[in-house]
């Protein structure tokens, strides 16, 4: 559909009134440009001619493919420096919060004016000792026994990152099609239910068993996501509401099942399933000293798959077209309901992969905490990764490190794990509002030089507010 849709595409978007206001700020590309940004609705990653871009979204630059000016792209992208500054800012604020509630800081604040150095030292040590513990728990622990012990935290990070990455990919993929998939939590649960049942109830030969576990989990997630897609496409039900409700429905279904003979471990009164057969669990990657399992390799494979899907396949192009402008996509001959259902199904399947990683990899049993908070964290992972596959991968690693390190931090310094939630959400908030970050770091003079993206947007907004 490369050649045929071209004229219709441009014709479809031309009368659309919305991109008009963005055509007024075409200079924003040079500032916002970024390697990851190229993955927009431009040339399907080079597979198509640049002229396939809706005319109204093209700027006058020659040569390099320009990114589209769709708002989702703008929200989920920004320039690389803003990302780094946002992480920094969130960490600083988190550190202040830690220091603020620290007991030593509290006592030194009592004689702040007598000896301010005590107070500042206490603030510094409270914040840094927590973060040092976080780092030691997440990446490298110099006090570990031998090389293996020293790298154990890194392995733990990768283990925790596995479900975050795959579920995050599911959320990111849906974002790219303009859908807010808040339902990764429910999709992980449904996948966990099916995969674990196949894992402990059926007894099959090695290889086939794991394959079936994998398929069952992915199908479970895909169906749960697909239903949302069908409801959205056929009835117009808002996917945010439906996915939130489906999360709860899945959770209560899980709790019910863990109460039945079908799922409850015989002789147990607590809601816990039997342990999965050895033939049904992921092999460990580096021996039994680490929990890291083959699921991590699948997460890498899933990232490659999503990258291929979005940037190299026709379906992915349709997804992005629908995400950029559903009306234009409809006029261009794209079957929007089909794309909606398909993208939610694939997104559910990816989240399902996270469910399989939980029951067949990390936990090896089904409990009602099987999804932990991975489904919700996946949303922030996708947002931080700007909905690009590799960005999501990196964000999943970062948040995996936070999660793994937070446990160690709580043990060593007593800082509650919740600080990770604060830092995570602050990062996403700051990344979503680049003008704010630039203003805080005093980078806004740029806006005087050129009518740059964030600055012109900000000016327009404040103009509207005034």
């Amino acid at each position, binding site marked *: 559909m490369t050649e045929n849709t071209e004229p219709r595409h441009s014709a479809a978007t031309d009368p659309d009134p919305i991109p008009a206001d963005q055509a007024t700020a075409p200079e924003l590309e040079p500032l916002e440009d970024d390697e990851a940004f190229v993955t927009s609705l431009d040339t399907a990653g080079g597979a198509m001619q640049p002229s396939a871009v809706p005319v109204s979204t093209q700027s006058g630059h020659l040569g390099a493919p320009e990114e589209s000016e769709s*708002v989702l792209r703008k929200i989920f992208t920004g320039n690389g420096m803003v990302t780094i500054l946002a992480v920094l800012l969130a960490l600083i604020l988190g550190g202040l919060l830690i220091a603020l509630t620290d007991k030593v800081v509290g006592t030194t604040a009592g004689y702040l004016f007598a000896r301010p150095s005590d107070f500042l030292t206490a603030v510094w040590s409270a914040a840094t000792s927590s973060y040092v513990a976080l780092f030691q728990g997440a990446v490298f622990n110099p006090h570990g026994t031998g090389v293996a012990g020293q790298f154990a935290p890194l392995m733990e990070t990768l283990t925790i990152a596995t479900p975050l990455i795959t579920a995050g990919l599911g959320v990111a993929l849906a974002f790219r099609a303009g859908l807010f998939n808040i339902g990764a939590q429910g999709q992980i649960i449904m996948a966990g239910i099916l995969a674990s049942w196949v894992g402990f109830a059926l007894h099959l030969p090695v290889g086939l068993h794991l394959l079936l576990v994998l398929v069952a989990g992915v199908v479970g997630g895909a169906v749960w996501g697909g239903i949302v897609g069908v409801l959205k496409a056929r009835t117009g039900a808002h996917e*945010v509401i439906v996915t939130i*409700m489906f999360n709860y429905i899945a959770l*209560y279904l899980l709790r019910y099942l863990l109460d039945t003979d079908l799922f409850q471990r015989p002789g147990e009164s607590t809601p816990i399933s039997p342990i999965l057969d050895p033939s049904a669990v992921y092999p460990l990657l580096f021996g039994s000293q680490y929990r890291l399992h083959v699921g991590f390799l699948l997460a890498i494979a899933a990232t490659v798959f999503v990258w291929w899907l979005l940037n190299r396949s026709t379906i992915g192009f349709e997804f992005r077209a629908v995400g950029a402008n559903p009306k234009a996509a409809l006029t261009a001959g794209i079957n929007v309901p089909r794309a909606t259902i398909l993208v939610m199904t694939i997104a559910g399947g990816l989240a399902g992969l996270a469910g399989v990683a939980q029951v067949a990899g990390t936990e090896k049993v089904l409990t009602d905490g099987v999804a932990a908070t991975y489904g919700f964290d996946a949303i922030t992972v996708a947002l931080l990764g700007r909905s690009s596959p590799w960005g999501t991968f990196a964000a999943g690693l970062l948040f995996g490190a936070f999660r793994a390190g937070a446990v160690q931090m709580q043990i060593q310094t007593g800082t*509650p794990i919740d600080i990770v*939630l*604060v830092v995570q959400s602050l990062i996403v908030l700051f990344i979503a509002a680049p*003008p704010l970050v630039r203003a805080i770091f005093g980078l806004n003079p740029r806006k005087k030089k050129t009518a740059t993206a964030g600055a012109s947007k900000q000016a327009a907004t404040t103009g509207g*507010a005034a």
Partner: protein
Amino acid sequence: MSTTATSPVKPQPEESHTPAQSAKPVTWKLPVTLAVLAVVAFIFFGLLGPQGTAKFGVSSGGDFFQLPAIEVPAFLSGMVLSVILLGLAGYALVLKANRNQRPPRWLPVVFTVVFVVAFLIWVVGGARTPSISLAGLIAGSVTLAVPIVFGSLSGVLCERAGVVNIAIEGQLLGGAFTAALVASLTHNPYAGLLAAAVAGALVSMVLALFSIKYVVNQIIVGVVLNVLVSGLTGFLFSTVMQSDPEKYNSPGRLPIIDIPVLSSIPVIGPILFKQSVVGYLMYVAVIVIWIALFKTKWGLRVRAVGEHPQAADTLGIKVNATRFWNVTLGGAVAGIGGSFFTLVAIDSFTKEISGGRGFIALAAMILGRWNPIGAFFAALLFGFADNLQSIVTIIGTPVPSQFMAMLPYLVTVFAVAGLVGRSRPPAADGIPYVKG
């Protein structure tokens, strides 16, 4: 901004460019949904209904006149009621098929009431002890509905002005935490109530700041804010509150104010005249917000901003300022609702005390069609399901309690997919306004 195009925040089937394609599912949705529900009711409540009798106590001990308990044969009434449901659904189908008409407005309401009654009889009739107190059930439902009502009112205020508020959960949680902390420090629950409103408003201001000034997608801000408030309250709970629970986490309760005589009226007495301040505030808030939105100049302006900001701007209404203050007000309302958890229900704060009720409030708002009165009744329905769940576990019915807990969410999915199709959100809901 072109959020319109990229994030279909509210689908508008009616406005589709191809009426031939989209009109059909829209108008068939309600009859088909009703028919499915009626068939389910007929099979479960009718054909497979329990044989015993269901007994409903109407009066409680303190009432000044006692009404006899109502006893109904479960199987017979299940049959009769489910046949009525089938009839209603059939009527809707016939109207659609023959005359291409929408069913009258009373039909879904009557259907819901009959369905709930049939369901209740079925549950109680099949229980080990087939007897419950109707008065207690309703009073408990209202109590459980209080935070949901406040939350949905917050949603109404925000979305009528065109800002999607997913952060209700965060506003409730922030209100609950602050209420507990301030009430403990000041030894005055009323100060806690006030602080809860301020906390909710602060959470809302962040939402307003990011979604209006920085034009960040409102759903993203909402989702992230929920996580942020959850993390902040969890962190401060572990570090501050647990270091000295006596000092920081013993807010004490708001007293139940019993209006003499009136509170002894059977069934409605305890609901209307035996509440805490928060409970009375709920009734006041529902009525005041309804009047303010639909009967005052201010409300007209708010709705104009939510429906057509360009037109409102042309007439000199400050769109973004209106949105900002509406969102802030909504947060304050939700914050008061949050104080219910720590000042009325339980007298201490624990992590995640709001337990997802912010999301139910969101559902109640949609089910109530962005109308304060509708949201109130939808919230009551959810409170009812919540309360029934705990009662069901006590009287021991064949229905697993998990399914009872699931019910509100299922109803919401049905509602957004089928019953709410006719109503639509404010046209500019979720779309930032940038002058240009």
